[in-house]
């Protein structure tokens, strides 16, 4: 049976694939010229203006503290025209808004909502990446390889940044360098009395171990990482041993020691009560038999012959049903992920569907297409 995707195709097959690709291209091109077009992102600018308020200490005139007050644009302009830009901070935040807000604004004759070029380019790039990855289904190609390389680079960078800002800064630097952290990194933190808590010196241990771990990258210093590795393995082993024994051995065993007779819930008639009792009790009996049979199957110290062999075979049946269920659920999950990507292409990029009512103005015109 042929299974290779790279196998040469007949000219007819090639033609069909060319038609499929061309159709997608035509839909995109046509779609971009119909109605309100496609793939644009709108934002609403929100000016953030601050002016400094310097408070001088009543006891010591040379001591002063600066606090920042957020002001409206009008107040800010007035302040700047009087005092200049010193002692001011301002930036603009952009909140993404649904395209319908922009259309409504245009219909009303103007407003502050504008097209965001960075986000619009980003959206088209996201669509390109999505299609580039999908292109692998046809065959391996440079677009796919490029997209694959981007994901590797961006992910590694992403994790490193998040690890630094979300864990190393608050959990290590804030403890070892509180004043520096407060001044430059996390101004919202509270300084311990005296500016430093000596008990936090214990956090030099993970710092040193962390540096040793990274030392693995240096030539001939690989052994340095054995200490932090030993710590990681040790703590994990200790934690898991207790956790698994308590949860997966003791609790799960307890859950299997259950009453085999269960009163049915359906009491609409005598027959239904007996019937539902049989079903409910059967479930319990099958459950207990199943667990025991599977455990017998896993018990390899005894040869699977005679009664043990037969029980083990029942165990295999249970396991097969388990794997079948796992397969069904896995399929279900994978398809949902694909559906989400297709929704992205149809909704965010091509504006073909509008389930979130983001572009009410155009949904009618798109509907006419079909």
């Amino acid at each position: 049976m042929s299974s290779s995707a790279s196998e040469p195709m007949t000219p007819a097959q090639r033609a069909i694939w060319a038609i499929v690709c061309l159709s997608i291209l035509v839909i995109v091109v046509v779609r971009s010229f119909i109605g309100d077009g496609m793939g644009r992102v709108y934002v609403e600018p929100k000016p953030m203006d601050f002016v400094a308020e310097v408070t001088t200490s009543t006891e010591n005139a040379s001591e002063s503290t600066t606090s920042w007050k957020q002001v409206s644009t009008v107040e800010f302009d007035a302040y700047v025209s009087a005092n200049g830009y010193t002692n001011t901070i301002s930036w603009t935040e952009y909140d993404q808004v649904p395209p319908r807000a922009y259309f409504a604004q245009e219909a009303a004759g103007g407003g502050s909502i504008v097209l965001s070029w960075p986000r619009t380019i980003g959206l088209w790039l996201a669509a390109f990446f999505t299609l580039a990855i999908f292109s692998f289904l046809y065959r391996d190609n440079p677009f796919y390889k490029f997209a694959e390389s981007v994901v590797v680079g961006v992910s590694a960078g992403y994790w490193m940044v998040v690890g630094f800002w979300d864990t190393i800064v608050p959990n290590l630097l804030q403890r070892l360098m509180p004043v520096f952290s407060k001044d430059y990194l996390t101004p919202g933190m509270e300084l311990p009395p005296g500016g430093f808590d000596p008990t936090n010196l214990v956090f030099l241990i993970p710092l040193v171990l962390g540096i040793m771990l990274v030392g693995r990258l240096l030539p001939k210093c690989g052994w340095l990482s054995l200490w932090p590795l030993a710590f990681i393995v040790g703590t994990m082993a200790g934690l898991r041993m207790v956790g698994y024994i308590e949860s997966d051995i003791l609790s799960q065993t307890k859950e299997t020691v259950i009453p085999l007779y269960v009163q049915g819930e359906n009491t609409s008639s005598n027959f239904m009560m007996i019937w539902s009792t049989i079903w409910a009790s059967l479930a319990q009996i099958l459950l207990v038999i199943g667990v025991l049979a599977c455990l017998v199957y896993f018990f390899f110290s005894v040869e699977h012959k005679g009664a043990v062999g037969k029980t083990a075979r029942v165990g295999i049946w249970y396991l097969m049903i388990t794997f079948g269920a796992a397969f069904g659920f896995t399929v279900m999950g994978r398809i949902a992920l694909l559906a989400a990507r297709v929704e992205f292409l149809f909704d965010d990029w091509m504006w073909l569907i509008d389930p979130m009512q983001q572009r009410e103005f155009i949904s009618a015109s798109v509907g006419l297409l079909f």
Partner: protein
Amino acid sequence: MIRMLENLDRRWIFLAMALCVSVPILVIGLTGVTFPETPTPLAEAFFDEVDRAGEANGRRANVLIALDYDPASAGELSPMSLSLVNQCAQKGHRMYFISLWPVGPQMIEESIDKVIKRFYPDLVYGQDYVNLGFKAGSEQVIKVMGIDLTTEFRTDVEGTMLSQIPMMEGITSLEDFDLIAEISAGYPGSKEWVLYAATQYDIPLVSGMTGVQAPQNYPYYPTQLKGLLGAIKGAAEYEFIVNDYVREARVRSILAANGIDEETSLGLSKQLDQISTWTTSAEAASMSPAAKAELIDVATGATPGEFLEGQRRMGPQLFAHLLMVLLIILGNLVFFAQRRRGGSA
């Protein structure tokens, strides 16, 4: 025919799958019609557990919401997160968001933006919900949170110390939460929460998870895991229950605000299609026209698209599953034909 199937290029299977997924999405997207859902006991248990969180302590519940997933699994899991936040916000629970996945904070941000900021703008950050962000360390983070949460999560994502956040008062460890609601895409995820939080500290835990994980977590239900949502089907069922609940709760709150007695309110909330007629009756005479219009809108208006994501995805799911069944049958036809000819499988 069999010969053709034997030599079938897998790209045709890919194309069939693409069509089975994209055509229903287009049709559902344009018509807005979804398949009806019948919630299974597991989804109902999930909802009930979130619903009664905090009741035993007679206070507003503290719910720890751990969103342990990334965009790769968001297709299955984000409908669960949105509905979970929707239910908690409507119920008035305090929400503490965390994540054990580096990309989790983005998932939290998305849930807050799509649900709280859009549909519950009255909720106040720091009083009703807080985003504590991500911490590296997987299950060890859970372990430390069980002993002392504030040493691990020192600040929220904006860098504000926990001591300055009003809703963090009295929260020192996992045991101060009435419920842990977790949405999981793998490791670290539901299993770790079961092992190191639910079992160890006996804290009620409900979890929504990917299709890959769901079968592996069934043995924990109902003791160690009080509710389980598996894959997009679980998401759609839960979404369905929560949408009904939110609609009923809103109808009842409008009726209560207009002085309608509890019994009538309860009856009406169960028969939403009757509300339009009821507003013309003498019982509704005390309500203003604006209140009546609002009531009819809440009772019969369209559900926002954000809260139908899971149910919409059940459309492509149906056709793709049918394709899978068909493919397995065709594959076996080929297999048996080959076997009859004495060829190798």
